[in-house]
């Protein structure tokens, strides 16, 4: 079970990890500045297993993989959003940062709610509000990538079989 950190629409990658910290790429360094320009308390107070809930177009802007790396290294279990920017979506799945798309859960969840998320089934259980939501399933190919553990293991496997 994790606590919800709720943000609005169009959370950009500069908000997730400002470029001024990208002169280094160690996950723990990035995690220490995660969400800094949107919420200075986040990096200090986030606990392992917490959940980020965002609006539409989460992760828009730069192609920096540092963004999902920072979120993952901060201990966030899953990001739930109405929709994702294209590059962030690819990057998150490629590095094994769980993300779910569920507009209903975004509407039905407030900051501080306790939620339990089953990543396999996409079931989102808001314990505080006693409501449950079902995230959209991934397209089959994306599921295959996720099951392989991300793009690198997937490509490795493909190369081996080639």
């Amino acid at each position, binding site marked *: 079970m994790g606590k919800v950190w709720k943000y609005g629409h*169009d959370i*950009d990658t*500069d*908000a997730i990890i*400002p*470029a*001024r910290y*990208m*002169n*280094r*790429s160690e996950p723990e360094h990035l995690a220490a500045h995660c969400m*800094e*320009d*949107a919420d200075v308390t986040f990096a200090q107070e986030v606990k392992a297993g917490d959940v980020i809930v965002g609006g*539409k*177009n989460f992760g*828009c*802007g*730069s*192609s*920096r*993989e*540092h963004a*999902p*790396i920072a979120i993952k290294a901060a201990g966030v279990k899953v990001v739930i959003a109405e*929709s994702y*920017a*294209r*590059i962030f979506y*690819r*990057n998150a799945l*490629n*590095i094994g940062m769980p993300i779910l798309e569920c507009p209903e859960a975004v509407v039905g969840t407030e900051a501080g709610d306790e939620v339990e998320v089953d990543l396999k089934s996409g079931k989102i259980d808001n314990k505080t509000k006693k409501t449950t939501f079902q995230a959209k399933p991934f*397209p*089959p*190919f994306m599921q*295959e990538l996720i099951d392989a553990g*991300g*793009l*690198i293991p997937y*490509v*490795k496997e493909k*190369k081996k079989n080639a």
Partner: protein
Amino acid sequence: MNPFGKADFGFGHEKEEIGTKHGSRITRFRAFSVIEILKQSGNVRQIGPPEFCDQRPRMVQANPCAISPGECREAIREKGRLLLMGMTISEKILAAHAGLDSVVPGEIINAKLDLVLANDVTGPVAIQEFGKLGIDQVYDKERVTLVPDHFTPNKDIASAEQSKILRDFAKKMGIKNYWDVGRVGIEHCLLPEQGLVLPGDLIIGADSHTCTYGALGAFATGVGSTDCAAGMATGEAWFRVPESLKFVFHGSKFQPWVGGKDLILYIIGKIGVDGARYKAMEFTGDGIRSLSMDNRLTISNMAIEAGAKAGIIEPDEITLAYVKARAKRDYKVYKSDPDASYEKIYEFNSEDIPLQVAFPHLPENTKSVDEASGLKIDQVVIGSCTNGRLEDLEIAAKILKGKKIHPEIRCLVFPGTQDILLEAMRRGWIETMIQAGAAVSTPTCGPCLGGHMGILAKGERALSTTNRNFVGRMGHPQSEVYLCNPAVAAASAVRGEIVHPREVVNNG
């Protein structure tokens, strides 16, 4: 003529009347027979989506029974319509690189890449991921390019270490297209200039503004470091074929000082920062065809700011004149079929577009320059991968000639490449700018992303020809960035507040 006019389609044991109101003249469906019938009709493209058990080898071979009859019907109804139509330039490039006759939006393909790009921010992470693949060479030393442009010349020890990772990897792999400080330029100015990105190419770059190369008629898209690593290793990447959106500009006459920057900001203002999310934007019309390459590159560059996967412009004489002088390998010109399918078509009168200013903190917050007029600023930035090309500097120099930068303004100029800088110098523009009181820098992404060389303090406001005005983009989280074209930037630098260039240039 519609080849499906008389075809008898059904779905398993169930037959369904669909009607014609969805733009489709297919009346009934049979899922398992669709491919067969399509293949029999000579002038029809083969069906694309893997759900329909295409016989050709694909990355995904889903069992057609795995989807419900309802989903299948829905999909066929949609795809059936598309199959009757031609292809867009984006679909043609993707199909050609995937070794397919055709593709349809939504289809997932594996395609060969003409170029893979990374920079000093995304490159080190890509190199680390590349290492995990257990491969000791990149797929092609000519086609993997590394451009240390973000925090260079190295801004501090940490960024020096990042650059070193890139440099060492380039050396170890024998990568041909690597440039160090003194020769390096801003990647999206440098690669077109060097003839490394060409019409018909399929390109991925670990930088979101990789979409810039769409201006040359290439399908180019930004990816993250891991996708880039896989691309460097295999020369391939997977793509979901995007739906296309068409943006038509009617008329080759624009308002004075209006350029490519205003057109793309105007579009983003209309459709929003996710208005083209996952889609390919295609810019066309005599308005676009009347623009120079520099202006077109600016338009394609900011397609990502509408969430797009690509921002593409069909090559014409202007494109080919630009490319012919630079290309060192073959290229192919693709054009959209007249009956290609677009999810949506937007039409504008070129003359109606006023000079644009995007207010904080999203590029979609656009207003006309007159609405922004009088807003005090502290810093003006002219340059970047969006507006750091020769024509951009020319416009700025033209406005600054014989004038002085306002005493309370810091005006920073960042040419895109060394060649651009040198040419601007030869033409006297750099001298003009320096005499006006502007600081002219070596090419770097520096201030655009708040990296270095022009960071804003708390409460400061910049007017910039760059591409993003997110919170904290250029410095302190409580600073502000306004986006505009080089003419507005230069004129405002003189006036000390946002102003229409006509207010500064007598004959403007």
